[in-house]
């Protein structure tokens, strides 16, 4: 019962995060909202696993936590350099020498 209420509250919080991700004025607001949405998704997967009596969902939650972090960093890199292929350190040195 308490776990069901927790899962419902997490779904409401995720809905608010989706609203911020849609109306966010800048791209950083959207990345922030998606990152926080992913963290709440991890919690929701864990809570639903215990709610339905299948605690093996925790493996999926761990994998989602890792993917969430990597996706945030990759989004910011793609936003900054307009590409995922350029090496980060070399392009930073090039920008420093240009400026």
């Amino acid at each position, binding site marked *: *019962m308490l776990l069901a209420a*927790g899962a419902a509250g997490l779904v409401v919080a995720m809905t608010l995060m989706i609203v*911020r991700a849609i109306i966010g004025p800048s791209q950083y607001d959207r990345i922030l*909202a998606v990152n926080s949405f992913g*963290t*709440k998704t991890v*919690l929701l997967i*864990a809570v639903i696993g215990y709610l339905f009596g299948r605690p093996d969902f925790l493996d999926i939650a761990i994998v989602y936590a890792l993917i*969430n972090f990597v996706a945030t960093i990759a989004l910011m890199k793609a936003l900054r350099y307009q590409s995922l292929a350029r090496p980060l350190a070399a392009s930073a040195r090039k920008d420093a020498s240009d400026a």
Partner: protein
Amino acid sequence: MHEALVWIGGGLVIAGTLLSLLGAGGVLRFPDVYTRLHAASLTDTGGATLVLLGLGLVSGLQLDTVKLFFCWAFIMLTTPAAANALANAAYGSGHKPRIGTFQIVPADKNIPADDGPAEDGPTGDGSSGK
């Protein structure tokens, strides 16, 4: 004993959910990237701690406790790192904070990155104090 642990764990899950809801409301209502980041990252780490600790109390001591600990450890490692990188990217792209009286320096002109904010803080406090 186990019944009491289940109720306490459920209460902790509810508390973490309420913290996440509070953070979502803050992200919706705050006026700035940096204040939204503050609300989101603090309530994410705190809410994840409360929810996963509550689930650990519900499940009892078994293999899932280790999985819950690893999940908590990953969240506590990655959420502040992502928040730091996001604030750094927003600062580097020239986003100005809308709250507060300090002035942001453009990223090109701020060559000693470590000395700038450290020197600005005490002088700003001293001038306002005098």
